[in-house]
């Protein structure tokens, strides 16, 4: 467990006890990646802010349910945010705005996008985010593409298969291999 993860765990325990100061520290630690995720999936800054507020209120009320054996605080918060965003998307009958239609998909240059994000991270203050992002960019393109569609897209595996134009078995294998590689890279760090 990293030092940051231990700090996160202590903070979440304090939050579970009603410590608003610890909650503020947790907000400062998590708000940027959670907001980035919300904005990316919802495609709207206002909705992303509303979603982020909902997520942090849930963190406040459900902090006592956090189980450190299951996941890190960061992972718990990310997955909680993603779940809330998917609920919003499904409730509004919308799909991910940033996912391009199939006809435009082939024109996306993930490497260029990754380089731009890398520049932003370099200029940014979150070194951990930049490091993780660099690891993600090390993944083979087809694996990262499949994982990214699955994570941000709120798509079924059949829809992902259609979008990628690949058999479902191939898609499953790409996602599994991508996650395993990511796990291995993160565990080595």
């Amino acid at each position, binding site marked *: 467990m990293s030092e940051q993860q231990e700090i996160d765990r202590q903070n979440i325990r304090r*939050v*579970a*006890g*009603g410590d*608003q100061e610890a*909650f*503020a520290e947790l*907000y*400062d630690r998590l*708000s*940027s*990646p*959670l*907001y*980035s*995720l919300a*904005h*990316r*999936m919802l495609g709207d800054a206002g909705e992303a*802010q509303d979603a*982020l*507020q909902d997520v*942090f*209120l849930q963190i*406040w*009320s459900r*902090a*006592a349910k956090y189980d450190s*054996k*299951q*996941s*890190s605080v960061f*992972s718990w918060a*990310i*997955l909680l*945010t993603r*779940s809330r965003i998917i609920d919003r998307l499904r409730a509004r009958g919308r799909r991910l705005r940033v996912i391009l239609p199939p006809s435009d998909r082939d024109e996306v240059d993930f490497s260029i996008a990754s380089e731009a*994000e890398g520049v*932003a*991270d370099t200029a940014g203050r979150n070194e951990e*985010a930049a490091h*993780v992002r660099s690891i993600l960019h090390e993944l083979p393109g087809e694996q*990262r593409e499949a*994982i*990214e569609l*699955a*994570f*941000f897209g709120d798509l*079924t*595996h059949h829809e992902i298969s259609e979008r990628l134009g690949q058999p479902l078995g191939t898609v*499953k*294998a790409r*996602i*599994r291999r991508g*996650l*395993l590689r*990511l*796990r291995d890279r*993160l*565990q080595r760090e």
Partner: protein
Amino acid sequence: MIPEEKQNQAAFYALGLLEGEEARALEGEMERDEELRTLMREFSNSAAQLAFLAPAESPPALLRHRVLSAVAEQEPIKSRQSPNWLPWALAAALALTCAGLVWREAGLRSARDRAVNGRAQLEAEHGELIAQRARLEQEQGGSEQERARLQGERDRLASDRDRLEKERESLLADRTRLEEELAALRTANPFSEADLYVLKSASLGTIRAKAIVAWEPSRQSGFIRISNMPAANRGRDYQLWAVDANHKDPVSAGVLHVNTGGAAQMRFKLVDEARQVKAFAISVEREGGVEKKQGPIVMLGSG
């Protein structure tokens, strides 16, 4: 070693792509398989790192204030850890519960006593109601008898009324009949109170002639009807006379005018009061009559 297909499912599950029965089945397996559970945790943590693929952005500073204010306004979260005073609080709660139970038992006893008393009172009221009902039924029976009696009386009165009505109608009919009979009698004998005098012919020439005189002394008036009387000779008239014991000469009752059929009738009064009339007589006098009888008597009759 976890099969690849199972790893695929775990990867899908970590990304939220597994739903329904498939997801529940995998959750069941994870409960039993620690290796699978560990893989799932690693996949979830790895998937969470994918969030860094989103362009790095920071939320507006105002949102921080909004979120922290919203949390501050909420009711303070009670710690999930048991505080030191918890046993004492539990003991106090237990004591309060016991006291409450004792108090409730007393209340229940009191309520039971009230219920018993209330039941006895209700039973007494029930008995009273039954007696009252019997009384009412008896009164109702008496009322029915009285009503039947009154009904019989009414029927009897109605029958009497009908009978009396019939009798009245019968009496009215009798009265009408009697009045009619009386009228008929009066018509037939208008001088029922009068003295009747049948005059007979005093000569051969008037043998078929008939005359009857009804005389009422009280009224000093009379009525004469003549039939089959031959017409009087020219310049002559028949004249009626009353023979009274108090008068030396007959008292004139007037001149009779016989029609062509030989009949004549008239009401008459005497020229002088006669209280003891013995007979009536018709004589032939000069036309227009005379005050004192002069001509021959052709018909004569006594009462």
